[in-house]
């Protein structure tokens, strides 16, 4: 199931288990995260994502198994691990009576940075998060999206090599989400390893190199994104958009390997599902063009990822 990594992993979780009183939050969890990658950690609510993150960031101790960050044990080398990581919790954890600059300055000093270093680092992280214009604003007066940026800036103040982000996009409007994702991509380009949790797989699909799916404390998949699609979807679905409304249902259905065709309500578009064993995307697209249809676009249906997620995780809410 898990892919084989060639370089030493930044994060190595082996046989990790954790239980809260009567319920087992994590059961024999194994996964690894490669250096300088953006790794998604996806699961429904209550799957064990936050518990795993809290163990990685040394707030909780594993009851069984081991977690190593840059080869260091999270139980035996707590301070060393903390210096290399930055954790952003799933809630706003901020001193709202401080200004943005005071808040970052405080954490910089708490990590032992000299004042001159802090000036430079804070300027950098404010620029990166596009908050330099609001550095003297009280955090209390910032919007949710801005507070999330400040929270991310705080995580970056000690220049961590591994960023642990617990559902950073939750509660943000679409624009703030996109901006946040752009910042994360920029951070990856800067060489950071990013471990990001979410309960929405499609949200991370374009962003992540690799993904781990967890459900009810059990790892359902861990590896690269393409592997997830190969494993979970033998029947990919694409959306064919036309420039004008054409009744192309029967023509599309006649293409080799196409399993089903259905019109998208109210749009000149069709949902096309094919059998991966009988054909491939290029062949289907060539067939569509040969039909002479006025093609506007031919894109992978992201709902398909959600279907993969649904297939891997069990239905219903955990008792």
């Amino acid at each position, binding site marked *: 199931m898990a892919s084989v990594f060639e370089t030493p992993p930044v994060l190595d979780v082996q046989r990790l288990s954790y239980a809260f009183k009567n319920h087992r939050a994590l059961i024999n969890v194994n996964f690894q995260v490669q250096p300088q990658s953006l790794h998604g950690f996806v699961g429904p609510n209550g799957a064990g994502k936050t518990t795993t993150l809290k163990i990685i960031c*040394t707030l909780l101790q594993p009851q069984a198994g081991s977690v190593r960050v840059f080869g260091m044990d999270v139980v035996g080398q707590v301070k060393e691990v903390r210096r290399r990581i930055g954790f952003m919790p799933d809630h706003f954890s901020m001193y709202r009576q*401080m*200004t943005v600059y005071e808040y970052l300055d405080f954490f910089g000093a708490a990590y032992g940075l000299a004042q001159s270093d802090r000036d430079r680092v804070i300027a950098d992280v404010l620029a990166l998060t596009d908050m330099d214009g609001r550095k003297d604003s009280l955090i209390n007066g910032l919007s949710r999206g801005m507070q999330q940026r400040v929270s991310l800036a705080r995580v970056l103040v000690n220049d961590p090599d591994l960023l642990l982000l617990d559902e950073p996009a939750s509660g943000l409007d679409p624009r703030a989400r996109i901006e946040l994702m752009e910042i994360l991509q920029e951070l990856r380009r800067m060489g950071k390893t990013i471990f990001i949790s979410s309960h929405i797989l499609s949200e991370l699909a374009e962003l992540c190199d690799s993904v781990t799916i967890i459900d009810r404390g059990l790892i359902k998949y861990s590896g690269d994104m393409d592997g997830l699609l190969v494993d979970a979807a033998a029947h990919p679905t694409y959306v064919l958009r036309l420039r004008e409304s054409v009744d192309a249902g029967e023509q599309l259905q006649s293409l080799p390997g196409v399993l089903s065709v259905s019109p998208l309500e109210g749009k000149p578009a069709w949902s096309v599902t094919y059998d991966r064993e009988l054909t491939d995307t290029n062949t289907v697209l060539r067939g569509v063009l040969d039909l002479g249809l006025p093609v506007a676009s031919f894109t992978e249906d992201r709902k398909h990822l959600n279907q993969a997620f649904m297939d891997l995780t069990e239905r219903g809410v955990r008792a």
Partner: protein
Amino acid sequence: MIRGTMALMDRALRVDSRSVRGHLIRFLFVGLIVWCLVVTQLQAMLISAAGLEFVRSMITIALFLITLGGVSLFATAITEEKEEQTLGLLRMAGVGPASLLLGKGVTRILIALLILAAQFPFMLLGITLGGVLIHQVWAAYVAICAYLIMIGNAGLFVSVIFRTSRMASFTMTLALLVYFFGPWLLQMVLASAIAVGNVDPTGAFAANADRILQKLSAANIFVRSGVIFSSGFSEPLISFQVVFHTISAGVFFLLFWLSFACFNHQARGGEAERPLFGRRTGKPHWIAVPRPWPNALVWKDFFFAGGGWTLMVAKFILYGLIILGVVIFVEAVSPNPSLSWDREVLGDIAIWVSLVLLFAELCIYSSRIFRDEIRHRTLSSIAMLPTSIPALVYSKWLGCLLATVPALTYFFAGVFLSPEDFFFVLEEFADEPGFYYLLMQFVVGFHLCTLLSMYIKYGSVAVTVALLFVGNILTVMTVQMLTWGTSDGEAFFVLGCMASMALTAILHAGVILRVGVMAQR
């Protein structure tokens, strides 16, 4: 209105019935009464009027707890809805001021009355132990119920006015201090004014002022309980105190109703507030928060929990004025008033006033230092710093202790002004084990308050004071019983000191462990 009221009452009673803590408190309360009864029964062989002693101590404890309840439980009834930002939702659901008053406030008063009712049968047992009449028990209960209703409604009114539980509790404490000590202080001023000839003792002003102040004193519940438990008590059950408190309760009820809309038209909760100081940009250098110190946690708590330099200056001025006010008052009410102040008097007052202020500041800090981190969910962020939990706890405490410099400065100024008196008192106390026991009670109290603040949202100071007060009464009664009244107290204080030190160590470890646990949430 009925629907909203019933929904709120239903919720309050459900929450109360499901709360293990609530049942535990009631169980402990009944256990306390039974234990006191056992002790009193054993003492009945040694002292006369054992029943009177029992009833008196039980009523005193009840009054004390009600007073603390007024500061914490009642004064936070509405502010907790504001802080949790649920007041707006309740109002949108059609719950009006009257429903809120009846559903939230009256439920709390009813719960307190039920506890009193549960206590009543035990009080009747006091009659069989001798020294107290049923009439006195009834009178005490009527007085205490009137007091409870008054303080409950006053607390609710305060909780309507203020946005935060902290401000509501603080204002309620001040109001109660004025209620208890105001008439007494004014009587002293009046007596002094008459003594120096500023007021004619036979004039209408002196007579009327004296009459009013005596009436106000009679409305004091502790004065009333003293009257009730005096020998030969035969006054009617409905006294001036009962009438005064009942009318006051009605007035507070009306004020609550009328002022609710005025003070709560904006659904604003208790957001984080910036203390007195300004931001770095665009402010004079001395007023702005400086860059973090090498120990950033000390810096943070000094400036953002303790108020920083600006609040320190404000405290220097305020404390100085308080000390000055007390000196003027003492001189004014002394037999030979004078404007040329005695250095020793000034020093003595500075010492005692600064100790009281220091105590109050430490109470506030111990109740806030971790509660605020939990409330703003920032504990996990600072627990993630590359430092140990004990280092984090001590750094935060150090930041708050720095903020007590004004009180400490006035204390040492007092020692400098009156070294003879200070060292004389110190020498006297140094030989008394009771002095060390008292000191240890403060140390235990601050630790207990810090620990409790991480378990309960509001009123950790009140609960700490209640636990220490009741715990000490219980301990003293038990020691008296075990030694058959022959102990001179010295052995008790020595043992008490040792027990307090052990308790402090346990609480200290408890605070550190609890911070670690709360950081994981």
